[in-house]
């Protein structure tokens, strides 16, 4: 992995991942919504050693912009070998669950637009017969909980989408990496009570970079103990689980 496109480059996890990649002198094309924030992130990465940093500003949740993004990539960063999809949105569940509009927005950001981008990039890499699509989903997509099912539903959809995509692309030697972080200390969760279960974005970023370099890695739980926690949670019968699923972590 030498040339990576990061979609949602100003997300906290993405920023820390990019810092590690910069130290390893990778080249990157960063896509984010705020030009000003992206500029400071890109400047930082250049000083930290990134060989090349290209900035592109667009609202990734807006599907109508996706074709233009792909054109930009083809013109400016044609020989990329990896894509990291890192953006997402987590509005307070209490607000979403009674609002169809807010829920649709969450799904638009977290699932529909992500699936759209993956469809476009999958075609490029499939034709080329190499590369990696890495996508940050969430442990929230492994089982629906009362506390976050609007968000969780989108992430679950994304997980299934990625499973299918993996099956389609493995013949063309394109790897699909599903990244499932537990709760992480980021701006996205800053309004949630942050218990002991919260991981630091730095350590999540380290796990992601390690997984990017391991060609056989397909599903990454980070921190790794979430694999076991979710395995256990998935064993709990629904009749029991429903009684506890409202609790915050």
């Amino acid at each position, binding site marked *: 992995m030498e040339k990576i496109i990061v979609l949602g480059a100003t997300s*906290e996890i993405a920023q820390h991942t990019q810092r590690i990649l910069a130290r390893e002198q990778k080249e990157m094309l960063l896509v984010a919504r705020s030009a*000003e*924030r992206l500029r*400071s*992130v890109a*400047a*930082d990465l250049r*000083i*930290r050693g990134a060989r090349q940093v290209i900035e592109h500003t667009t*609202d990734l*949740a*807006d599907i*109508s912009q996706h074709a233009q993004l792909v054109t930009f990539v083809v013109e400016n960063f044609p020989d990329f070998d990896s894509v990291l999809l890192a953006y997402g*949105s987590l*509005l307070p569940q209490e607000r979403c669950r009674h609002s*169809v*509009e*807010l829920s*649709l*927005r969450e799904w*638009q*950001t977290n699932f529909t637009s992500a699936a759209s981008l993956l469809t476009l990039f999958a075609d490029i890499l499939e034709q080329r017969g190499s590369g990696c699509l890495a996508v940050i989903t969430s442990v929230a997509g492994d089982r629906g909980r009362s506390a976050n099912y609007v968000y969780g539903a989108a992430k679950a959809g994304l997980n299934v989408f990625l499973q299918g995509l993996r099956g389609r692309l493995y013949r063309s030697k394109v790897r699909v990496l599903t990244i499932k972080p537990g709760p992480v200390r980021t*701006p996205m969760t*800053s*309004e*949630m*009570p*942050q218990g002991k279960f919260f991981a630091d974005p730095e350590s999540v970023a380290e796990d992601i970079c390690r997984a990017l370099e391991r060609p056989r890695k397909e599903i990454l739980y980070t921190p790794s103990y979430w694999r076991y926690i979710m395995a256990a949670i998935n064993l709990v019968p629904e009749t029991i689980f429903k009684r506890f699923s409202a609790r915050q972590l």
Partner: protein
Amino acid sequence: MMNVTFPFNDVDRSAPIRPLERPREYFSWGRYPRAQHESVYKVYWADQVEAILAISRPGSCLPYGLGRSYGDSCLNAGRSLVDCSRLDRLLSFDAKSGLLSCEAGVSLAEIQRITVPRGWFLPVTPGTKFVTVGGAVANDVHGKNHHRAGTFGLHLARLRVCRSDQGIVECSPWENVDLFRATVGGLGLTGIILAAEIQLKGIPGDEIEADAIPFQSLSDFQTLVEASDQEFEYTVAWIDCFSGGQTRGIFYRGNHADGFRDAHKKNWSIRVPFAALDFPLHRYGLKLFNSAYYRWKSRRGSKARVGFNEFFYPLDAIRDWNLLYGARGFLQYQCVIPEAAYDVLQEVLSKIGRDGMGSFMAVLKRFGRPKSPGIMSFPRPGLTLALDFPMRGDSTLRLLDELDEIVVQNGGAVYPAKDARMSPRTFEASFPAVDEFHRFVDPALSSSFWRRVTGG
């Protein structure tokens, strides 16, 4: 059918930042005093700072970096902190001129890690690298090269400050000079520092040619300083404050050595896992440590080539060493005494010795002439002594009050960055410019320290 329209320009995605839900406890390095904060804002982007200041009540906020101030100058009991440690982006670096521009939450450790292999060094560095640039400016920190280079503030080309009443203001030695001079050493009260431009210093290598020379009295120390400050860029002394009438210690001096040997990679550290019981730093423990340290250092050959981390940041190798002082925390005391008053220093040291309150690391250094632009800057020509004392209640506080008395009477000053208890009178005597400084304090900002020393 509901339409989803673009862009999502409602409040949700550019929402005004809200305080953290159930934040961790924010300490100062001495862990005394402890403070409950009403709220903590963690900022991730410079643009969020303006929004926070815009909605904050008068005197409600204080920027917080890595919490290395010892006392209460980084605390704001009952009010709000703005945690700026994530404003840690480097904004530009000219590898030819050594001019670095960065956000204020960048730590000195990060700067050294990135610039040292490229031949650039911090012009001034304190004894720990785990401070932010903003904190280094706000306390106008000094280091072992004060006699040559002066304070951190002397090497700033520009600051970007966010104020509740003026928005974002650029200031420098040439532009908005008054605000610049108030912000350097301004304890974070003149606005939240967003970014700084620092002129780094070119170095021939990443190691230090260091000398360690034992001395047996203050006059020996004086002789060593006189002989060394000309030829050595870095000088400092450690003293054993349990040694009775004669003050013995180790004098360190050093210069940058030629050749890069990846010294930034030699950077091991261990971590203190939890607040210790009091006894390791009990009087006898301290006494034992001090005399063992003296013997060890005076036996080892004096000349050595060491990595810069080892020379500048020996204590950083023990992460969270402040926990060794136990649950009650400790107080650091640093004063400066004008050079004419050498015997005053002896008086201070004997007093400490008599009270049996001696310290783990007592450090002595002669400040030089270079004058800081900061009107509230602490360093001034003279001898500076820094000590730490385990917090043992009233007796500790009483001793420090007595030391204040001696220092102030002799025209000295006490260092706010390390203070948790000085009186308003001591503060005013130490900082005659405080009346002028008041004008520059941002109406939205305050600190526990500031309220204590101004009675506000």
